[in-house]
């Protein structure tokens, strides 16, 4: 059954100015929006106490962005069939090394994947 929520009760606005939220599945939407809230880009917290970590986060976020773009570009070339077997092997080795190096660096600076997740606007989230 469709549930219409008159936001005049939520926003203490008098009856004439109500806005509505109408849905059949309020709990499901609330649950998905919680996930979105957790995934929203965080600010880089740079202060004297954690300047090093803040800078590492900034730098690694940029590196991760470039790495992901390189990976995506490689996949497009694989899809297009424009790489020889030798090139596939070389690209694969390079991408694997980059991925492993990123894991190392994240560990060194105590950063989790989600901390490097930035919103790229129309392209969605980085991770």
């Amino acid at each position, binding site marked *: 059954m469709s549930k219409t929520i008159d936001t005049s009760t939520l*926003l203490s606005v008098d009856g004439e100015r109500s806005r509505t939220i109408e849905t059949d599945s*309020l709990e499901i939407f*609330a649950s998905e929006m919680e996930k979105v*809230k957790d995934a929203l880009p965080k600010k880089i917290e740079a202060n004297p106490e954690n300047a090093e970590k803040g800078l590492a986060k900034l730098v690694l976020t940029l590196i991760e962005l470039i790495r992901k773009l390189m990976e995506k570009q490689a*996949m497009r070339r694989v899809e297009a069939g424009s790489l020889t077997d030798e090139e596939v092997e070389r690209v694969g080795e390079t991408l694997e090394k980059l991925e492993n190096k990123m894991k190392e660096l994240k560990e060194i600076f105590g950063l989790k994947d989600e901390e490097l997740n930035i*919103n790229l606007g129309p392209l*969605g989230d980085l991770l």
Partner: protein
Amino acid sequence: MRLYTYAIIDSTGGVEESINGLFEALVYNIPYRDIGIVVSDLDPQVQIKTEESILKHEEVVEALMDRFTVLPMRLYTVFSGKEDMLLKVKDHYEDFIENLDRVRGKCEYGIKVIWAGNVIKERIINAHKNESASAQPEQSGAKFVKEKFEKYKIDKEFEEEADRCIAIVDSFLNRLASEKELEKLKTDNLLLSAAYLVDKEKSDDFKKAFEELKSSGGDLKFMLSGPWPAYNFITLSRSAAWAIGSPTTAFWPGDGKFGGLDILGK
């Protein structure tokens, strides 16, 4: 005395009815050329970043929306005084005029659509498992590429499926909107998060179109909200630091974001 700002409006006159803003301070309009900035006085000592402030800010903006064309300010936009505020407004005056003209007589509706993304992705993954039962490459580089390529194909197919569904949803509503902002797959199950800018006169038609969409939507789940001020359709021409909010709709429970003008670049 600090000034808390709620919105830019297309009027230099007073806010005729009594509207109380944050901490029950009376809201009033400060004119600048042919526009106005709606503010209330703010005690320097108070903490404003509370849930109550968010609701009060929204309440004021919506009260204004019924009588004026409104460009909502971002939450917690505070100036040290009138002069400070008018200097900033002067910087963005042309943008404000352009935006007021664009959104005059219009309001925003938010649409969210949930689909069984997890189930669809599982189906795609299984289909690909069956397809790619070929022998694993021996060399590690090629093996790495194969794994990444499998994931790439699955993600791509998932997105294409999402695009098809979104196009169908949009086809019900698009003709009634002058502008739209669509954001797909904020999570695997949140297929679409959209804002539509609709002439106020077409509000009833838009809601009717939404009902038609709902009744033909199959397993999709829908949420409509509004009418809101045009949070997602206001843009400033200066650098990205001054840009408006995000493609997300402004005021959703749990969204944690609030659109509106950000002339302080925060």
